[in-house]
């Protein structure tokens, strides 16, 4: 997958000279070129899913139902965005779900104290957000330290923090949700147009993340690191520092995800984010990123997340046996993996 924004002007200037090594003519059959456009396929799939559920239950296209899907999408996508940066950089972060739980529990403790002091709701939520983000970033820092200095592979390092974060969340909370913050639930439901305001915050985060992943030097380094770590280092990039920043970013977004769960549930529970690492990774993989690193698009992750949450809600609303949800996710991942296999093979330089 190329990372240059598509634009063809100037192409003519690029190399007027005869190419000494004309590109090997690759068989580009129609299947490959259509299947190669993952974004397009994802859009078609999303449209088809929406139409299917709509045909089963017309209420599926109501604004109320869209709001339900977006509620679910918002808490998932923050984790998936961080996961996209990590996967593009050639790593994996299994701790995002557990970090969301852990940060949510710590945030809930700090907010509970303030709620009982009757501090203003806005202040409570601002403090909670800062605490959640800080706790998340801290977990990211631990991940990076395990990877950079203890030389653990990301899978093992983040599996360890997954266990530690979830365990600590349980220990601290005694396994039960912390807080019963009705004010937060109602506050977060305030609508701006058809959707509640947190949706717009998430959209803002998505736009900024997209810009930084695809158009900035930070994003370029992330792709370079995942594509060929040696090349990145040899080109003078501070690979370790960049890796730290990627895991901290992922942790920070997971912490914010924990705050979103708090707003939804009015509490921070040690199981709030349990298993969400799977959904986040699934969104990224369905979105077309390679687990080998170096490729992926945030728009793909967003579509992947929308597809996952649409399926979850669609199955509930059309009263299908809910166990199919997991089967559906598995099928989607398998399809995405098959598409990756069909794409032109990446030759490592």
């Amino acid at each position, binding site marked *: 997958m190329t990372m240059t924004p598509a634009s063809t002007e100037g192409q003519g200037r690029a190399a007027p000279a005869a190419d000494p090594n004309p590109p090997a003519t690759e068989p580009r059959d129609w299947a490959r070129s259509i299947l190669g456009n993952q974004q397009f396929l994802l859009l078609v799939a999303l449209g088809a899913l929406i139409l299917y559920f709509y045909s089963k239950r017309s209420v599926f296209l109501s604004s109320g139902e869209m709001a339900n899907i977006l509620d679910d999408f918002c808490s998932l996508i923050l984790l998936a965005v961080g996961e996209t940066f990590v996967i593009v950089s050639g790593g994996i972060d299994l701790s995002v779900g557990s970090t969301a739980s852990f940060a949510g529990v710590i945030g809930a403790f700090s907010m509970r104290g303030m709620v009982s002091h009757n501090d203003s709701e806005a202040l409570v939520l601002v403090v909670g957000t800062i605490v959640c983000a800080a706790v998340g970033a801290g977990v990211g820092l631990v991940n990076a330290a395990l990877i950079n200095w203890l030389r653990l592979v990301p899978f093992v390092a983040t599996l360890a923090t997954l266990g530690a974060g979830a365990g600590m969340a349980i*220990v601290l909370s005694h396994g*039960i949700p912390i807080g019963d913050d009705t004010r937060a639930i109602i506050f977060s439901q305030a609508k701006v147009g058809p959707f509640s305001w947190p949706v717009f915050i998430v959209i803002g985060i998505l736009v900024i993340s997209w810009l930084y992943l695809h158009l900035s030097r930070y994003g370029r380094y992330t792709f370079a690191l995942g594509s060929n770590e040696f090349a990145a280092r040899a080109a003078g990039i501070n690979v370790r520092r960049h890796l730290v920043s990627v895991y901290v970013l992922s942790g920070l977004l997971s912490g914010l995800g924990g705050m979103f*769960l708090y707003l*939804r549930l009015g509490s921070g*529970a040690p*199981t709030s984010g349990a298993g969400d690492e799977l959904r986040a990774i699934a969104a990224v993989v369905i979105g077309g990123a390679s687990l080998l690193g170096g490729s992926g698009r945030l728009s793909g992750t967003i579509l992947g997340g929308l597809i996952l949450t649409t399926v*979850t809600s669609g199955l509930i609303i059309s009263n299908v046996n809910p166990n199919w949800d997991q089967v559906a996710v598995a099928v989607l991942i398998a399809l995405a993996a098959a598409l990756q296999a069909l794409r032109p093979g990446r030759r490592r330089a």
Partner: protein
Amino acid sequence: MRDRSSVCSIGARRKATLLVLASAGVLAACSSSSHSSSPSTASSGGSTATSAAGASGSGGKLTIAFNMGAEADPFFIAMNQGAEAEAKSLGVNLIWQGDPSQYSPATQIPIVDQLLAEHPSALIISPTDPDALQPAVNQAIAQGIPVVNVDTHVTDLSKVLSFITGDNQQGGAAAADAMAAAMHYTAGQTYQVVVGASSATTTTNTARLAGFKAEIAAKYPGIKVMAEAYSQSQPAVANTNVNNWLTEYPNLKGIFAIDGTNASGAAAALQARNLVGKVALVGYDAYSTNVALLQKNVFAALIAQNPTEEGKLAVQYAVQYLNTKSTSGIPHEQTLPNIVLTPNSSAADLAQYTYPTA
């Protein structure tokens, strides 16, 4: 029996993660696990023996080893209080020990083995898995140590002295009654209700749901169970489920939240849509968070188990058997009825049945 969701989810989901990454395969997630669900779970702790530690020999006193799933789960803290009080009044030593934070046979088995090495007079155990803990129970019995099961049981109960647990079937029926009362059920009218469970394979959930449905069939023909869904032990998933139901069934009258994750998910959905008092939400287990929401009328009723009594009876039966060497008067299986808490319950009742957190 009770539920321990998050622990289940940590262990089982981790396996699932590996599975997915290895093969992009099936998301087995938590559903494979056979216990469980509820907000709570395992938890913390730290301290091990709460009361007189020490082996069997201390001064000729009887020593009862009590091994539970996860020490600081409020459910087990309540059980500990009952057991402790009974041990004190009977003048026996109690060794209270379980993993601080993990509800899993992998951590439970070594703890039982170590307890048995101390040759206690009796073993009371709450097995985290019916098959995995069977060998440990068999070994105890072979050593001449009588075994009591509490809350959950091993597969083969034939040589176990007694098994004491909450009655999930009765709890489900009580939930139906409480819901009907909260909805002011009148014959001839129709009431749409839904049920949120943690997973299809959680046996406690199935028993509660069966009791709920049987009671409706017998007494409330107007109540229609429109849908059931699983939270996979995640409150956010339960919340999504309930949000969708509220969109799909604008006239929804009742929600039975079988476990704690569904309780928090449903409670949040009702509060977000200002439906508190309009949809009768009945939950399970008297965790402090649930009781706080009950006092805000978010729950119409809570079905509380009685772990304190379970712990007390377990110690009582063990000591009775050790003293008399006879099983007479000791029920082989005993199910304790659940308690229904409502916003109108007395403060004393709420205080008594809320599971303590320390």
